[in-house]
C-alpha cells in the first residue's frame, strides 16, 4: 500500500489493538485522530522512574485547576520561579 499524499511505502503498526498506518517517507499517519490522540496522551504521561509522582487522574470532568495533593500544585497562570523556567533560558 502506498501513501495517498506522497506515494511512499506505508507501514502498519498495532498499538493497544489499534491499527495505525504510517508513511515511511513523509511520516504521515492515517488513523482516526481520536484514537491516535488517546494513544499518544497515554504514552506521554508515562514518565521515567526519577520523575515526580504523578497526580491521580481527575475523578470527574477535567477541570482547569487541579488540586490533588500532588507534590506541586499546578497553578495556571504561571508566576514566580515557574514563569522563569517556562520563559527564559
Amino acid at each position, binding site marked *: 500500500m502506498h501513501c495517498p499524499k506522497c506515494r511512499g511505502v506505508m507501514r502498519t503498526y498495532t498499538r493497544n489493538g489499534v491499527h495505525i498506518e504510517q508513511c515511511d517517507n513523509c511520516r504521515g499517519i492515517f488513523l482516526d485522530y481520536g484514537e491516535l490522540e488517546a494513544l499518544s496522551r497515554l504514552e506521554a504521561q508515562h514518565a521515567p522512574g*526519577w520523575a*515526580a509522582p504523578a497526580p491521580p487522574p481527575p475523578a470527574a470532568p477535567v477541570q482547569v485547576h487541579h488540586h490533588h495533593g500532588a507534590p*506541586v500544585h499546578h497553578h495556571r497562570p504561571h508566576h*514566580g520561579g515557574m514563569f522563569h523556567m517556562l520563559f527564559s533560558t
Partner: protein
Amino acid sequence: MRPDTTQPELFDRLAGIGRDHAAGPGEPKLLYDRHGVLVVRIGEIVVKAHQPDRAETDGSLERRVRIAQDLPELFLAPLAPPLHVAGRTVTVTPYGEPARPDALPWVESARLLARLHRSPVPDGAPPLGRPERVARQVSRLPGGPAADVVRRAFATLPPAAEFPHPGRLLHGDWHMGQMVRNGDGWRFIDIEDLGRGDPVWDLARPAALFTAGVLHPDDWADFLTAYRAAGGPAVPAFGTPWTVLDVPARTLVIQIAATCVISARDADRPLDPAEQAVIDTCGRISRAGDPA
C-alpha cells in the same frame, strides 16, 4: 525619556537604530536588560544588543539570520544582517506579541517545532553539540545543600560523546519566551542557537518541567501529542518517548535547578515551591543513577 538602564549610551544607540527602521519617531521602550543583553522596542521594531561574550567572528550569526529569513512561516527573523555597534552585535527584528502566561500555546508551539524539525537542513547550518549551558551553570553553583544535590545529579549524565546527531534543523534554545505572534500566527524568535543537531533538545525543557511535576501533565500531553501528530521526528511516532527524552529531560532538570539556586542566592531569597520541586527531582535523579 530614557528608562532606567544599566547601559544608557547603548540604549540611545539602539533607540536611534529602531527609529531609522520604524521610519518615524516613537518612544523607545526597554524590553530586556540582563546579562549584558539589551532589547529596545520602538513601535513595531525591536533592536537587540546581543551578549558581549557571544560576539561571533566566524559568521555563524549571519548564517543563522539567513536561514531564519528563508523560513518566514517559522521565524520572525531579523530584517537585515547583524550590525556592529559600539563593539556589540545588534539585530533588528519586527515586534511580535509574546505568549501570555495564562494562555500558553503548547499545541501551536509543538506544531511549529515539528515543522522546523522536518524542514530540510540548509547548507551552512551551524552544527550544535550537546548543550553546554548545563555544565556552565553547574560550574557557577555556590556551596550549600541544594547546590550539592544538583551537582550529584549532574554526575549521572553520560559524557557528551554519547550524544548522537541525527542532523535536523533545530531552534537550540526553545522555551515559551521564544514564541511570539505576529499577524497571522505564531513564530519563533531568537536565532542565536539555531543550527543542525538532535531536535530532541527542543523538547527537553517542557519534558523536564513535566518530570519535575511543575508542568501540568495535561499541558505536557497536549504538547507531545500535537508534536507527534504533526510528524515531529525527534521522538518515535509510537511507543514510549522516554527512550530518547530521558537524557535531555534530566539535563534540563539539572540546568534549571542550577539556574534557580544561583538566582535565589544572587537575590538572597529562599527557593519557591516550583524551584524546590526541580531540586527535589535532582535528588531522585541521583538516587536512580546510583549503582544499586
